[in-house]
């Protein structure tokens, strides 16, 4: 199939950037979205142009590197799917696809479609440590965890930190990401000693980075490739408010 791409090109953080139009022929429906961009880049290189910079790593939907706003939807039209797992069979001949980087002040564009997501790392860092004996492996079943909590904690832990939640949020809020991390530790016994201080520090770091506040629009969970549910945000809010009440 033949497609028209409108790709955000920006040579560096200080460049203004613009959408550039590319016509690309003979796209196989079996290609992944990133493979389609690989083909575009091969052709750009052959033509002596600068290839489109985009983040990618595992290409199997688990690393969280790929990050593209495709036609105004983070990770494109497939639900619960990262860009790398989106395939061209969902498009048809003659389609025009607009590809942009995540847009948020805390995610500055490095080049083209690549944004710097180290704000997420700093939120994680603000969470600090958990108090567990790190020496020998613990005895099996020494620490009982209710099945429901284990499942919910695991669901939250599947967050790959891709930033789609921020990209889709009309407020540029990182609440779903932060809430997933807070929930995954907060539901488990190992996470209890620092539960309050962790929630507080991470929420405050999220503000510090310049992310907006949550207005419960649910756009984040709708585009999340891992389907992190909105109730993680309720848990974050509860933990944060409880911790704030305790320590003033």
């Amino acid at each position: 199939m033949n497609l028209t791409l409108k790709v955000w090109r920006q040579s560096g953080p200080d460049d203004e950037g613009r959408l550039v139009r590319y016509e690309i022929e003979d796209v196989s429906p079996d290609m992944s979205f990133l493979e389609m961009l690989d083909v575009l880049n091969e052709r750009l290189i052959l033509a002596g142009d600068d290839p489109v910079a985009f983040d990618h790593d595992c290409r199997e939907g688990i690393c969280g590197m790929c990050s593209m706003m495709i036609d105004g939807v983070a990770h494109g039209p497939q639900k619960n799917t990262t860009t790398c797992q989106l395939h061209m069979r969902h498009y048809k001949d003659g389609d025009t696809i607009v590809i942009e980087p995540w847009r948020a002040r805390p995610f500055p564009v490095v080049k083209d479609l690549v944004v710097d997501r180290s704000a997420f790392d700093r939120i994680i860092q603000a969470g600090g440590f958990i108090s567990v004996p790190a020496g020998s492996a613990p005895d099996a079943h020494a620490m009982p965890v209710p099945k429901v909590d284990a499942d919910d904690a695991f669901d939250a832990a599947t967050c790959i930190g891709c930033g789609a939640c921020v990209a889709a949020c009309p407020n540029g809020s990182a609440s779903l990401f932060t809430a997933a991390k807070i929930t995954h530790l907060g539901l488990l016994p190992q996470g209890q000693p620092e539960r309050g201080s962790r929630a507080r520090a991470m929420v405050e770091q999220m503000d510090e980075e310049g992310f907006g506040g949550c207005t419960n629009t649910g756009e984040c969970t709708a585009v999340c490739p891992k389907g992190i549910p909105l109730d993680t945000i309720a848990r974050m809010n509860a933990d944060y408010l409880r911790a704030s009440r305790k320590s003033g």
Partner: protein
Amino acid sequence: MTATIDRGKATEPVTQIPSRPRRSRRRVSSNSLKAVMAVSGAVLVLFLVLHMAGNLKIFAGAESFNGYAAWLREVGYPLLPHRGLLTLLEAGLVVAIAAHMYSAIVLARRAANARPVKYAAKVKSRADGYATRTMRWGGVIVFFFVIYHLLDMTFGVANPEGHEATPFDRMVAGFDPSRWYITVFYVISVVMVGLHLRHGLWSALQTLGLARRYPVLKASAAGLSALLTLGFLVVPLAITFGVVR
């Protein structure tokens, strides 16, 4: 023996983008501002429930309606001064509205600041609909409606009967069939209030960390908003269509 391993480009230091300088001024967290919005919103919802109940007394006749209005001013007397409790409640409402609006404005500004460069493609909403997207501007419209409503029904400035008339007369005159456009304006505004509540009710519980079982929660929020909207609409419509005169 020494081995030199050349890892090439892969291990070259990457030029770091400097992180933004930390703000020295400590701000109120967005979560705390949202909690303020949730609590002040809850106060306003409680008020709306009482307000609606009071309005519906119009169907019990002028005496009942005016009696209720007079009672509001005399409740607790002589322990409380004349209009004592009412003034206290009014002050509470003003504080709630001010807190709600202040938080909303600060949060909206932070949100705008969090996305300085907009998307070129139209961002497709994949989640909740109209009610959620109209919270901010809907809130502004409701605010202006409340101002007009106070001028109309409380101060009587925008009411044909004026301030000296009984509450019943003011109400009936205000929604007289000849003033059908006022009724239309009220209907639109009350529907805006209903939409605001539809998202606001469950959102408040979410913000306070109390949200559970979302389908039930959202359905209840929609149900309660619909109930309040209908309860408020039935009075002006009944007057305009001549059921109450």
